[in-house]
Structures are given as C-alpha cells and as structure tokens.
C-alpha cells in the first residue's frame, strides 16, 4: 500500500499531500488539511454536503479519489470565504436563515456558487434544479432558494455599481 504524493490547487494555493491509494478528496480535505467545511453526510454521493468545485464545476468530494484531481483547481467553502466579511451567498444565507443545523450549508453554498458562476441571474426553477442533489432535513428548502435568489440580486446590484 505505497503512499503517493498528490499536488493540487486549493483556494489559490498549491497543496501537496501524501495519501494512501484512492483516498477521497473529502478525506484529504477534512482529515489531512483540516478543511472541515466540506462535510461528510453520506459518502454515497447522495446528499451534497461534501460539494466542492473542481475547476469551477461542482462535484461530490466523497466520490473523488484525490489522485483524480492532481494538478486541478479545487475550491471549498473556506476558499470563497473572504478574510473579512462574507461572500454575498453567505450573507444571503445568513439573512434568510437558510439553515438550521448548518450541516448541509457548506454544500448548499458551494452548489449555489457554481450556479451563480454559470448563470448570474437564475430563474426560480434554475435554482431549484441546481439544488436537487443537496439534501436539507431542517429547512424545507424554501429559505435556501430564497437566499440564492437574494444573493443573485445582491451580486448583480454590486456588479452594476462597480460598472458605474
């Protein structure tokens, strides 16, 4: 069971980890790097609480051997949290109480980030479709969908102001 060294980009920094064969990205993030915002809800690809972005695309880090992302760009919730203040999505989730226990929240924010990166002005249906792989047992989803809408609006207002 020879360990190998894997290098990838995490939140703009190059990281190097030594792993046993086929260690998941989820495990590397949580257990080796201490990036525990990426949650462990099912390890079956069924709940979305471990959602990260690989080269900007959402993936379930529980299903991803870290070797597969060697040299790739990985983004977690830690990566998008500004040093001061919050990302507009985080702000919107906070304002809308779009969480209760908070365990699904990192995955929800990450899939929403991917959505707004692809489509800054998603429709209500676009948002609902984007979130179908992310399970929340507490909120009934309505506050979450509302938060994503609010974040999209806030980000487009910000963009508008910057353009002016």
């Amino acid at each position, binding site marked *: 069971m020879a360990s190998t060294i894997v290098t990838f980009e995490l939140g703009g920094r190059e990281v190097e980890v030594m792993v046993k064969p086929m260690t998941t990205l989820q495990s590397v993030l949580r257990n080796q790097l*201490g990036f525990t915002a990426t*949650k*462990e809800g099912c390890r079956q690809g069924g709940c979305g609480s471990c959602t990260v972005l690989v080269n900007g695309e959402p993936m379930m880090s529980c299903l991803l051997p870290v070797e597969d992302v060697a040299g790739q760009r990985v983004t977690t*919730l830690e990566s998008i949290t500004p040093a001061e203040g919050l990302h507009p999505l985080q702000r919107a989730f*906070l304002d809308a109480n779009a969480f209760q226990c*908070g*365990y699904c*929240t*990192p995955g929800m924010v990450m899939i929403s980030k991917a959505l707004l990166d692809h489509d800054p002005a998603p429709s209500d249906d676009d948002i609902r479709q984007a979130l179908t792989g992310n399970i929340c047992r507490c909120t009934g989803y309505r506050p979450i969908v509302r938060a994503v809408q609010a974040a999209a609006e806030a980000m487009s207002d910000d963009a508008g102001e910057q353009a002016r």
Partner: protein
Amino acid sequence: MSSHLNVVGQSVRRSDGIGHVTGRTQYSADRSFPGMLHLKMVRSPLHHALIKGIDLSDAERVPGFVRALTAKDVPHNRYTILSLIGVEPEEEFVLAEDRVRFKGEAIVAIVAETEAAAFEAVSKVHLDLEELPAVFDVEEALKPGAPIVTHWGNNTFMYEGHPCRRVRFGDVDKAFEQADYIVEGVYNTSPIEQAPMETTGCIAVPEANGRYIVYTNTQALYFSLDNTSIILQIPGNRLHFIGGTVGGGFGGKVDVIVEPIATLAAILTNRPVRFTYSRSEEMQVSSTRSAWRIYMKDGVMKDGRIVARKVTSYADSGAYSRQTPYALTKHAANAAGPYNIPNVSIDAYCVYTNRQPSSAMRGFGITMASFALEVQMDKIAERVGVDPWTIRFINAYRNGDMKPHRKLAEDATLIETMQAAATLVGHELPDEFKAMTSAPRDASHDGGRE
C-alpha cells in the same frame, strides 16, 4: 407576564449563523486526533438467530487490526437507556451475547488503525448463527405461537401489570350504545428514519489524568454520560462529554448507542477511537420512528358531538424497547386529541418484533396519533353530514375541560388557532364559530356540553 419586552420577541440574528455559513461550526466528527483508531461493527445478517460461535482468527491477521470487542469485554453489558428514569427491564445488550433479535444487531466491535483495515477485519469475522423464526408485524407478534422476541415470554412491554398503557375515562361501552353513529377506522404508518444530515457518531479520547473526553453529537449529554458510566462501570467523574451543535437530531440522537462502546475501546487501547455511523447504518440499523397500527372507534351524536372514543394502538418497537414504552404513555395521554370527549378508553401497546428497533423521533408517540385522529375527524364529519371545520369546532376542547387522563385543560387555544387558519385561507366561518372561544364553558352561554 412582562408587558414590555426588549429582546424576547425580536428576530435577532442567530448567534451561530456566521459559523454555519462559513463552515466553521465544529461538529463532533470534524475533529481528528493523532493516533486515532476507527471502530466498525460486525452486525447480524439475520433477523433472529442464536449465536453459536464467533471466529476472529482471520480478522486478527488483517494488517492494522488492533483489537476486537465482544460481549464479555463490556463490564455491564446492558443497554437500557431509560434505566436512568427507572424504566425496566434490562433487555438489550451493548454487544449481543447468545442471541440476535434483529438484522444489524451489533455483535463484535472491531478497532483498527484505519477505517479500511476495520472494514476488512469486519469482513473477516466469521459468525456461526442458527436462524430462528422471526416476526415482523405487531398483531402477528401478539398471537399465540408467535416467535418470542423478549426474554420474558411475550412480546409486549408490561406497564405495571398491564400489557398496554391504559386510559379509562367515563364509560365508553354505554356511550357507544347511546350514540347515533359509530365511526371506525384503522390507521397504519411505516417506520421512518430521522435522517439527520450528520450521522450519529462520537470520538472518545483518553486524557493523561485517567479521564476520557467524549466528543459526541448526542442530543442529551448527561443522558449519554450517565449511561456510559453505568455500562462501563466507571465513575461519571472520569467522563467528560463535549457536545455542541448537532447536525440534526429529530430524536435519532437520543439513543446512547455509540458512546459506551467507543469509550470502552478507548479505555482498552488507550488511544482515541472514532465510531461514526455510515449512512446505511443510520438508515438500516439506528432506531427509527415506530410503525404504528391504530384502531379508532367513535360514538357520535347526530349533532356531531363525539360522546365516546376507543383507541387501540400498537407501536412496533422492533427488537428492543429503547424509548418506545415512553412514547406509548405519551401517546395514551394524547390519543383522544384536542377534543372534549366524555368517555374515552385507550389501550396502547408497545410490541416487540424482529425489526430494527424504534425509539424517539420528532413528535414522539403523537405524530401518528394526530394523523389517525384528524383523518378520523373527517370521516366523522362526513358521517354526520357537516363540513370538516364544523366537526372540529363542535368538539374542540376548552379551558377547564377534563381531559381523559384527568388533567384540566388550561392552555387550550384550538378554537382560536382554527379561526386564524380559516382567516388565513379565506374560509368564511359561520358566526357561531367566529364567536366561539376557548374560555371555560359556561352553561348560561353556549349551552355547554353536558
């Protein structure tokens, strides 16, 4: 109470909100410790069987295997969470002894250097089991000749000499005779999984001073600590339980299922030990909401007044009772519903089957009573020929009414709540229901109910 409030009543921002949206909230499994071992369970593949032998020899040869724990390693191998509040008998085991009573019952705990090694060792434990007949239905379990799940000869939990929790109020039989209509219903519900997003789990860590810190996502820290202390036969002051934000509970984390064995493993290995349920364990092994079968019989007068209600309920406790006996008592106190019914008889049975045990879940004993009751109310309305609002207003309880368990109603607001709901949906209520209140009945006003 206080007429002027500063903070209570304000939607202040949640104090844990920033932690949640940044992912910095620390859940129990977010911790990791140097040298931490992983615990995985060998579970029964059969619903009901005698354990003839356990062969660990192949498992012990797996690289990374540290040790196995069986029933004989557990100082007080009884898992009876409600023993803390005097509920008996002690019937469940932390690790199975000579018999398994449900598929998934824990038999051997494997502790290994890595999760992978633990899985591999688990796969190499050989069990010699002799399958026994099993029973899965609450009423089948009560029939003569049914396979017996318990160690005391029948499949019901005993309540002070009765096989069910009883409520007797008034004289239902007489009232049924005098009733204009009899309305009957049978209601069945499936077992349900709490499905918290964070699975049940803990990490037990030996301290230098002979104490053990247990990081756990239990819903009840002292419940877990006290039970662990009993099972491990060590003083509670050697245990230090740390919880915090739980990634969803819904009742599923009131069981004390992971802490005792993880702590024991930490004691025996002097290493930190993590025991976290996989999602499939959470679904297939951890306690569920019970399945229920509820028989309801009501005697009703032509004017819609319910004069008698007889309820016979069976909760499928599964192989062990855990918290279900308590759910039945709570159920019995509420099975007549928020209505003023002068004659009530309730028999609520906690039944053992060879199913995955049930225990607490949000709405403990009442969710399914409410389902049965409120569907039954619609059937009564239809039988009497009134609309569903009317039947509820006619029978709604008021302050000062005596409930079947002989407690006076004092915080009744069913009427006001129904009025508000009608307004919300734009349903126009007749004036008499608009004027109704939950204030104590007064014979001089609406004629009372006597």
